[in-house]
């Protein structure tokens, strides 16, 4: 039985980061072609155990993200299944040209793992935040962009990506994430997961913002508002069939993401809706285009309304406008 199944049965939730590391170690023990490549990030990537158990399958690059991605591309071109693991902020900014050219354009199917993504590093400040990564990855051809929300999605994303012949960018944080659903055990890249259904509003989250959206749905229910909640774990390619269905069945749509409001999930959803003549009440929640407030991840989330009550309030405003 997989670790996250054991955990789920015992009612234990962990950070997606922990699940990533244990899943990678499990699959790498069964496949010697799986490699973890790190930039002095095995500790922050929870890969210390991996390094001890599988020393031949972990490659240390040092703090050199450009070389990290280039080397990963070279290993991948030789048939290795490579997970390049580095804080999302550095991986997707410092090494962006290597991602664009050496991974995506050259089609070397590296799995880029952005750890401690979004504002996971909290008060360490903007140097350590990745609020741009969805935007830049969306503009690059030949990469699947994924932000798993809970332990189940994380484990599935890692397992399935390991077998995929295309490049992936998978990002998550280090906050403990409760399981979104005990029943729904389907995970397919490019297919959003509908966690609950309601006709008044569709709350579409990704990564660590799905859970507060689910909590908001509970609060809204008390006010007589029925919310659909979606974990849109795959930002690209976007599940446009699901979006069309939500537009058809819900009165309003709200997106929420741990990313700049520019260029991320919300604008991707808006682009689809507008270009397909779905003119619905619509709101993008995320981090505004400003110097991000200082605080822990929770404090930053709350400051910008990425919380149960914040999403509840935004929904009420949106529906009143309607």
């Amino acid at each position, binding site marked *: 039985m997989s670790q996250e199944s054991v955990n789920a049965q015992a009612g234990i939730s962990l950070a997606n980061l922990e699940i990533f590391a244990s899943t990678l170690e499990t699959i790498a023990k069964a496949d010697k072609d799986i490699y973890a490549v790190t930039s002095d990030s095995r500790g922050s990537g929870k890969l210390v155990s991996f390094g001890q158990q599988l020393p031949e399958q972990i490659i240390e690059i*040092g703090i050199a993200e*450009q070389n990290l991605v280039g080397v990963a591309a070279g290993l991948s071109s*030789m048939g290795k299944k490579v997970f390049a693991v580095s804080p999302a902020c550095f991986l997707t900014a410092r090494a962006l040209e290597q991602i664009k050219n*050496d991974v995506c354009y050259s089609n070397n199917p590296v799995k880029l793992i952005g750890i401690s993504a979004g504002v996971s590093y909290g008060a360490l400040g903007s140097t350590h935040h990745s609020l741009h990564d969805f935007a830049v990855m969306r503009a690059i051809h030949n990469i699947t962009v994924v932000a798993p929300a809970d332990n189940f999605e994380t484990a599935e994303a890692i397992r399935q990506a390991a077998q995929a012949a295309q490049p992936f960018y998978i990002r998550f944080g280090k906050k403990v994430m409760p399981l979104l659903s005990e029943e729904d055990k389907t995970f397919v890249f490019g297919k959003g997961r509908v966690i609950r259904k309601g006709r008044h509003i569709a709350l579409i989250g990704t990564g660590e913002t799905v859970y507060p959206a689910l909590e908001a749905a509970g609060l809204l229910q008390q006010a007589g508002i029925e919310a659909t909640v979606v974990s849109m774990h795959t930002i690209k390619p976007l599940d446009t069939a699901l979006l069309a269905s939500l537009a058809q069945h819900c009165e309003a749509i709200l997106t929420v993401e741990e990313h700049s409001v520019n260029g991320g999930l919300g604008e991707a959803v808006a682009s689809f809706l507008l270009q397909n003549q779905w003119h619905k009440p619509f709101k993008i929640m995320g981090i505004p285009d400003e110097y991000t407030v200082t605080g822990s991840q929770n404090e930053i989330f709350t400051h910008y309304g990425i919380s149960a009550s914040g999403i509840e309030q935004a929904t009420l405003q949106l529906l009143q406008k309607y």
Partner: protein
Amino acid sequence: MTINELQLKSVEYRRKILQYIYHAKAGHTGGSLSIIDILNVLYNRILKVSPENWPSKTRDIYIQSKGHCVEALYVVLADKGFFPEDDLLSLCQYQSPYIGHPTKKIKGMEQNTGGLGHGLSICCGSALAAKKDDSSVKVFTVLGDGEMAEGSNWEAFMFAAHYKLDNLCAVLDYNKLQITAANADVMGLEPLDKKLEAFGWAVKHIDGHDVEALTNAFESLPFEKDKPSFIIAHTVKGKGVSYMENVLKWHHGVPNAEQFEIAMNELV
């Protein structure tokens, strides 16, 4: 191929580089003429790679980091039979797969390069993978002197030495000119051999147009066990055409009809 045959091949390749650049009215002329002897020796004497073993896992690997000099590589790959040479008449034309930088759309090309400072890191990954597999595959790259200013190259120099990649050989096409001016004026590289040695590489200087010296150097790889090898190949930008040699404007200058004829008359 004998040394004499290699020398004749170099003349033939130079003529073809100019023919296709002249036809396309585009290309990196000076650098393609400075790199060509290195590619000639690699593909005709050293690399275990051919259309027949492509893309087997046992082929040797060449990744051109100075991607802009793709015309030289196209001409050599065509000569080796990877694709019909006439295809190059479409070089840089609308919808042609033969774009102005190396592209995996073309059989024989390992990676899409062109952004500078990328090739060596990829080679490091490939060479390490070969070591992990106990494979005898050797990995080669040619760098431009301008791109030596890219920090990513120096990250890769550290990596290759740290992992003792003696199955990796990097060649510098050291023609000493980049698009703006001489390297020495843009961003000085010297003392390059000392820098690379300090980074843990085994370094040799050779005349990058002397096919015999190139052959001997490549056949003596690795220069030192457990160290990556670096060849500082001293070259001349625009080599073989008198009015192009060491003249900056031929970085990506295209000859007119009269200049083309002069060049063809010189390359015999």
